């Protein structure tokens, strides 16, 4: 198999300058002069050697693995919390080793930073060298072509009276034309009566290699710098409500270092409706949700509203931001009246889905209007069914037989002292449970369009049927056989709004890297020589090729040059 040999003649000028321990380089690593500068130089050379690059690459591969085994804070924060609960002894140890933040850990960063320093130290001298090589002429033809791996020779009988020197010149001209047309850069040489053409091609191989490695740096820099200008924010919108793109309306917002949170583009999004389909019961994948679509109205300040849609795989582009659909659920509309009949709560409350059948949980907080603050934990079952234990569960995600059950607490919600509390959790430590659980009072159970008494004569609670204007009936009333609950409960969507400054750059560099890689791996870099030596009434023509790097097709290429040139010479000398 062809292997390039740098000890072969012709190596030298125009060689890609590779790290000194590259497999194709013959040079031995020189002993360092033992001064401080010498050591520095030696250290630098070690860092930019092939072996170091290789070791760092392998280390990087190994170091990336734990992040797939241990849950990561970035990708799966709940998993981390759970891990701490499940492994109370092990988790803190792992945490100290930064195993829950592998990809931002000191050791992972150290590996890739070293790798990229090595890479830069490798690429810069090679680029300089290649720049020169690009403008250099192909090297002098070696004296003894027959020493090369791929060598062919043919003897051409000259016509009687033909001038051998002229024939040699003509045949070398033919070779030069042919090679130039085949994409070689050529240079003619002559020594004594022997004339030759020296040709080289495939500079794109080294160019590709450099583009590839430089593009990797580009990817890293884009991610690093672009991240500073990037933000992501989450918000929840119930059908019929509007979100305004300011910090206030986000439930969470993660800006990069250089983002001005007050400078967000002013636009608003109104959720007109949310579509979803569920696989029919009894079919494969029954209950599987799909075809999610959030139908929005978008509006910029002072402009006309525009319709927009967000679907999975089809984020909505708006003012350089991209809006993604991250989740959805039911938002039961609940109203509460106190004993005097005053409305103290009236809102659609997003309930978080707990399973694929959309069993959902939500929290209602009534801070004012009651003798004491009131808190309710609700469970919503879009298609409720009683388990043998008596507990309810949802057996299908659509609204076939929706039931809402509520636990009631009264006391101090803990929201007055300014401690931030999630709207999705209730802290019952300073509250008394009035209904549900161990309170001895049954939990309240409602279907859309029903109302019930609150315990202790506190008032009433109604689960509004948003699809109907009919007045609510008391809980426990008979339900019509063919009652259709479709649309009786509002939906909400959780949206994620992103400004990604890095993405386009990362993509550009990644594509550049891919193109560079194609050239680096598949463009053959080779030298080719054709030499004509007059020898009495014959012309000795030699062909030789030398691979520069991996070049499995060199043999065939030399054969082809010999064949084509032979034919051309034959034709020229005959004709």
């Amino acid at each position: 198999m062809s292997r390039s040999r740098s000890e072969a003649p012709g190596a030298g000028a125009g060689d890609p300058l590779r790290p000194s321990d590259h497999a194709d380089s013959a040079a031995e690593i020189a002993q360092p002069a033992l001064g401080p500068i010498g050591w520095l130089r030696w250290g630098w050379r070690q860092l930019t050697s092939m072996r170091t690059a290789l070791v760092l690459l392998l280390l990087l591969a190994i170091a990336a693995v734990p992040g797939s085994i241990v849950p990561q804070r970035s990708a799966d924060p709940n998993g981390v919390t759970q891990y701490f609960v499940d492994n109370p002894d092990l988790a803190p140890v792992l945490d100290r080793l930064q195993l829950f933040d592998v990809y931002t850990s000191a050791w992972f960063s150290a590996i890739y930073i070293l790798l990229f320093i090595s890479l830069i130290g490798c690429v810069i001298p090679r680029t300089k060298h290649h720049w020169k090589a690009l403008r250099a002429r192909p090297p002098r033809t070696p004296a003894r072509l027959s020493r090369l791996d791929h060598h062919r020779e043919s003897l051409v009988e000259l016509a009687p009276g033909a001038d051998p020197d002229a024939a040699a010149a003509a045949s070398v001209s033919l070779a030069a034309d042919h090679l130039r047309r085949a994409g070689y850069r050529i240079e003619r040489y002559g020594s004594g009566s022997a004339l030759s053409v020296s040709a080289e091609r495939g500079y794109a191989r080294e160019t590709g290699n450099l583009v590839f490695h430089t593009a990797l740096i580009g990817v890293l820099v884009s991610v690093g710098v672009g991240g500073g200008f990037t933000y992501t924010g989450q918000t929840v919108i119930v059908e019929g409500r509007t979100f305004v793109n300011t910090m206030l309306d986000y439930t969470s917002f993660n800006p990069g270092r250089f983002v001005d949170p007050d400078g967000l583009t002013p636009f608003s999004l109104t959720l007109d409706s949310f579509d979803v389909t569920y696989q029919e019961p009894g079919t494969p994948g029954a209950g599987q949700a799909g075809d999610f679509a959030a139908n929005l109205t978008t509006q910029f300040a002072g402009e006309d509203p525009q319709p927009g849609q967000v679907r999975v795989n089809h984020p909505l582009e708006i003012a350089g931001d991209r809006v993604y659909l991250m989740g959805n659920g039911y938002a039961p509309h609940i109203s509460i009246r106190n004993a005097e009949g005053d409305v103290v709560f009236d809102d659609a409350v997003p309930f978080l889905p707990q399973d694929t059948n959309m069993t959902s949980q939500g929290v209602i907080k009534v801070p004012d209007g009651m003798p004491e603050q009131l808190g309710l934990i609700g469970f919503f079952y879009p298609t409720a069914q009683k388990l043998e234990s008596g507990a309810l569960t949802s057996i299908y995600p659509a609204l076939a037989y929706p039931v809402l059950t509520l636990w009631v607490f009264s006391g101090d919600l803990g929201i007055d002292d300014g401690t931030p509390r999630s709207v999705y959790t209730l802290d019952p430590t300073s509250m008394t449970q009035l209904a549900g659980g161990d309170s001895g009072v049954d939990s309240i159970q409602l279907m859309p369009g029903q109302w019930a008494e609150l315990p202790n004569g506190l008032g009433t609670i109604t689960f509004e049927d948003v699809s109907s204007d009919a007045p609510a009936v008391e809980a426990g009333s008979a339900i019509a056989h063919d009652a259709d609950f479709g649309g009786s409960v509002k939906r909400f969507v959780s949206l994620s709004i992103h400004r990604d400054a890095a993405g386009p750059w990362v993509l550009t560099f990644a594509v550049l890297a891919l193109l560079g890689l194609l050239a680096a791996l598949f463009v053959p870099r080779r030298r080719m020589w054709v030499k004509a030596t007059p020898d009495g009434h014959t012309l000795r023509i030699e062909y030789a090729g030398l691979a520069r790097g991996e070049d499995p097709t060199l043999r065939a290429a030399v054969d082809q040059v010999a064949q084509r040139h032979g034919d051309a010479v034959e034709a020229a000398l005959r004709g």
Partner: protein
Amino acid sequence: MPTGTFSLDSVSILLVWTAIAIYALAFIAYAIDLARRSALAIGVKDAEVREFVAAGAGYAGTTTAAVAASAAVDDLRAPEPSADAALAARPSKRPRLVWARIGTSLTVLGFLFHVGADVTRGIAAGRVPWSNMYEFSLTGTMLIVAVYLLVLFRYDLRFLGSFITGLVVLLLGGATLTFYVEVAPLMDPLKSVWLVIHVFVASLATALFALAFGLSVLQLMQARREARAAAAGLDRAGAVTRAPKAGARILRTLPSSDALESLAYRFAIIGFIFWTFTLIAGSIWANDAWGRYWGFDTKEVWTFVIWVLYAGYIHARATRGWRGSRSAWLSIIGFAAVMFNFTIVNMFFKGLHAYSGLN
């Protein structure tokens, strides 16, 4: 579910099992071929060993022993050039290995059934047949066979036939037994052109890595045999009389470790290109589906690890002291990671890529 669709899927299953049975037969035929190659090698070998023993016994002088030893090395390496040449021979100029031919014919036949199974599954599902573990396996193994058969036009890799058919029988049989799920509609994130592109190209890369893996394993075995042969030669003629093991005998008919390495490298770099593309395409898709192009999700981590491992392999091939056996180990580890990623990671690791279709 209309019964028509259901029956089409059961036709597909029938075709799958037929394909598996035929591949198993192909595996046997290829195995017999290897055994026969080794028998051929023994025939030649025995005669030579006898001569050497006679020579060694007759003249105890050191020079003669040295001559015998170097002759032994020459002898051990003698079939290499012809094996190397045979590797790149055109199909019509290849040695007539009857059992290898039977193996290839059976593989082609099995492949036709395999394609039938894949296409009927696709029609039954009304989409591309690669969107759950069972379908990944079905299509992935089909691409492995397709790439192998395509490569056969260019290189005589029939000595890898038993490896390829064996691998496919194991993967496809195992997948059909354990991963099979009925046709179900796609989950939303999978409804994307990137499913078609990303998964297909990843499977192609896997097929190429599989070939590279097989060649790298052979390369290691061959390198060991060559080293042993060289050592035996230096170890005076006496060592030559040690009978080579069966494995080594088969290896005598195969290309040199250099040739195997060079070929493994060629498949690995094409695979690497596809894998790079897979990585990029996956990121674009992730950006559409999940709102970020990279998040170190488990599957992303493993795709990246595999990419880095093969980058390491390519570097190792270019590093003095690593070319040869050491780099071959990286190709082997790389493919092990590919298989791990496909099986263990898909089934047991938690992540966003929860598309195995299994519960």
